């Protein structure tokens, strides 16, 4: 089964609005990462947050991590049409060979 569950499954917004995606996971982690996927092919790494961090920023991206609730959120501010993609969280598991397990993803559509 998937380690991570994301919501919403799909999100449609207008350019300039903020987009928030949430990820919940089940077991203890070393870190949590967010990836972006265009057109159903290769994924691109966006940001990594370690288990001892609570918030991290990168450009228009803001990620939070709450290990007590086993959840994370990705905020994209001032969205652009080019942000249209699927976004996935991935957890590096702490006790199980530190492999990366991906969530179910959020499909973001940004309308110009």
């Amino acid at each position: 089964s998937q380690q991570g569950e994301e919501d919403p499954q799909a999100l449609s917004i207008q350019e300039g609005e903020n987009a928030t995606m949430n990820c919940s996971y089940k077991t203890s982690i070393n870190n949590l990462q967010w990836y972006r996927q265009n057109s159903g092919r290769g994924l691109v790494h966006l940001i990594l947050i370690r288990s001892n961090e609570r918030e991290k920023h990168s450009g228009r991206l803001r990620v939070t991590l709450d290990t007590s609730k086993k959840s994370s959120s990705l905020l994209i501010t001032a969205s652009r049409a080019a942000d249209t993609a699927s976004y996935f969280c991935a957890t590096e598991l702490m006790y199980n060979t530190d492999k990366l397990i991906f969530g179910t993803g959020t499909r973001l559509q940004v309308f110009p």
Partner: protein
Amino acid sequence: GAGVSQSPSNKVTEKGKDVELRCDPISGHTALYWYRQSLGQGLEFLIYFQGNSAPDKSGLPSDRFSAERTGGSVSTLTIQRTQQEDSAVYLCASSPSRQGTEAFFGQGTRLTVV
């Protein structure tokens, strides 16, 4: 190389045939992953290689699936006696060290079993 390379990009095969999918990771990367993604779905973990450690095969869906990584570099995912439900995009990724580093993905192989 410049990035993770997967071949072929697309593969159409008849039900019951065997297929081999290849992944060339970034040179020097010790970790290599295989994932499967069905249309509109998330990434399903298949197998994980880390250096000289025994691979984590816990995600392989059946004994028809196997993978090798030769010399700590190139990896081959083999699917024997393919079934229609094996149709998906197979993604390979590599990363440079054991923990706390990003994974770099190839563009995937789209497998269609007819």
